[in-house]
């Protein structure tokens, strides 16, 4: 008896973690992803980049490694004080406002920086801070939307695969409706119908249109597991349908859902960037990598390349790392016998 316990094989997750740890590329990718998630955490709690909207530099300040732009030197100096004008009707209001601002602690006309570590955009916002804050928006949208899509897909797939029959037919009908409309068109249609813009809207749109992939895979898994002995044993001891679905079978198919979720996160981050670029994504006050690319398009003609480089490279690094990690996770959880 003791020997049996000693020789008990490790479970699915322990084996998968062992395989994942042996893959060095996957560990590197995981480190990069965790770094981005840490930046999301820091930025959402306000510890980092909370002041991204402060206009701390001259317009289009170049990055520090390029050097200051001599043409903008005049803007870096604080403006010369305006000589008093006895006929100014707003003089009293302006001085009252200045006194109020000074009271609240805002320095009057601080010196604007001529260069920043990665440059500034049209209004003098720090590009690095914008990239971090924008990353927070894009990554949170991707994660939450993927969670919604996988949750919906798993729920529908479980019910459909487990019960079969008419219920299965109904959900298959929904599935064929949603897959006959291309997802981009579905997303744009729902964006047109929901007039409000916002992070919640994008999450809903992406989640409600992206459930079809997980649905198909989870349904196939449930059909496979429904006939297994442990489910029949659970039925024999009187477990109800829901209990069998979610307490007994779900832990055995959760690795499929996990892999689907990591694949969807990548797709949804890319979709959010495109939506925000077109103006159907985040509202005007929020920054996202998509809105940065939107501004970058016009700046490039003026020769200002730093916002494009920052947003594009941050996104490329994250998506590459996440894709590599998702591939490695899938291989670790379900290695194909060669």
């Amino acid at each position, binding site marked *: 008896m003791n020997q049996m316990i000693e020789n008990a094989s490790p479970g699915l997750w322990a084996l998968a973690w062992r395989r994942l740890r042996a893959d060095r590329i996957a560990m590197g990718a995981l480190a990069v992803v965790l770094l981005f998630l840490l930046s999301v955490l820091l930025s959402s709690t306000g510890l980092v980049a909370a002041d991204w909207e402060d206009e701390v530099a001259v317009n289009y300040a170049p990055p520090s490694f390029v050097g200051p732009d001599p043409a903008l030197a005049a803007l870096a100096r604080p403006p010369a004080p305006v000589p008093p004008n006895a006929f100014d009707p707003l003089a009293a209001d302006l001085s009252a406002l200045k006194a109020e601002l000074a009271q609240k602690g805002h320095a009057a006309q601080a010196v604007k920086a001529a260069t920043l570590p990665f440059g500034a955009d049209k209004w003098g916002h720090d590009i690095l801070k914008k990239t971090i804050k924008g990353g927070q928006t894009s990554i949170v949208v991707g994660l939450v939307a993927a969670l919604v899509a996988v949750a919906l897909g798993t729920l529908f797939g479980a019910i459909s695969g487990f019960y079969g029959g008419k219920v299965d037919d109904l959900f298959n009908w929904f599935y064929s409706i949603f897959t*006959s409309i291309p997802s981009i068109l579905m997303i744009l249609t729902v964006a047109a119908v929901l007039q409000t813009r916002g992070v919640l809207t994008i999450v809903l749109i992406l989640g409600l249109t992206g459930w079809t992939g997980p649905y198909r895979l989870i349904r196939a898994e449930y059909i496979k597991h429904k006939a297994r002995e442990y489910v029949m044993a659970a039925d024999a001891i009187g477990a109800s349908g829901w209990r069998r679905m979610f307490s007994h079978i779900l832990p055995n198919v959760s690795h499929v859902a996990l892999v689907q979720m990591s694949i969807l996160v990548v797709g949804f981050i890319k979709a959010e960037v495109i939506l925000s670029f077109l103006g159907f994504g985040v509202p005007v006050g929020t920054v996202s990598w998509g809105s940065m690319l939107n501004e970058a398009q016009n700046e490039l003609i003026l020769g200002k390349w730093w916002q*494009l480089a920052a947003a594009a490279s941050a996104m490329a690094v994250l998506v590459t790392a996440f894709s590599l990690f998702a591939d490695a996770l899938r291989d670790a959880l379900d290695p194909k016998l060669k």
Partner: protein
Amino acid sequence: MFAYILRRLWQMLPTMAGVVVLVFVLFNWVGGDPSYLLAGKMADAQAIAGIRAQLGLDQPWYVQLGIFVKQILTFDFGNAWSTGEPVSHILATRLGPSLTVLVPLTVLETLIGIALALAIAFVRGSLTDRLVMVACTVGMSISILVYIIVFQYGLAYKLGLFPVQGWGDHFLENLLRYATLPILIGLAVSVAPTLRLFRSFVLDEAGQDYVRTARAKGLSERRIVWVHVLRNAAIPIITYVMANLPALLIGAFLLERFFGIPGIGREVILAVERSDFPVIKAITVYVAAATMVFNLLADLMYQAVDPRVQLK
């Protein structure tokens, strides 16, 4: 064969009905009342009521659904709300430019994808293979927006090799002058995911027994890959290409928007920006129908490519 086609068309009806109901629910229920939008600022109650009567929004929902179904069957969705152009005219005139970009793009993309995947199959498992796969992953992570912005700035604006934007009147001029850069960018964006996918199809086939038999018989590697493996890998390739065609019609919307090509994708973006419901409804319903028809075409093509396939 004819019976099979009839049966498939009959099976499409419930799905098509579901799409119509979904679009109807989205636009007439979730979308709210558009008469306020259309009446413009400073509209009085009479104008709003008039517009509502004109659009048929004061009728009960089953009458509105009936009107919608009639519109789909007669291809007459009325006029676009923002420009007043008949929706059927919009669809008919925008299809041409979309196809001028789409058809060469799909053909080139498939051919290049197949050629590269087969070339990679020769060196499978080697360092070259792994490096190419990593390059594909990196290529896929760069957003299509970056490709478009950089290529348009570099090749068109700075170097002047292509026009920055625009569309002409004559088909050949459009194809050779205006469509070249968008097609180039489309190829650059699609080569990475296509190569990855086609490579997995080809490698699935290359591991089969018949390939080992062919090699044992003494056939050259070139013949094995180009004649035997390709024929069997063609089925998943056809599935992928045919399934992506309707999506590509809309998916080229970014290219159309950046380059000012008056195509269907650009119309969708404009309609969404202006809340122009008839245009969006019409395009959604017809693209859904096109997707189902293309799936049927793909199944028919399977039988042409693989005589063992029995369509039942």
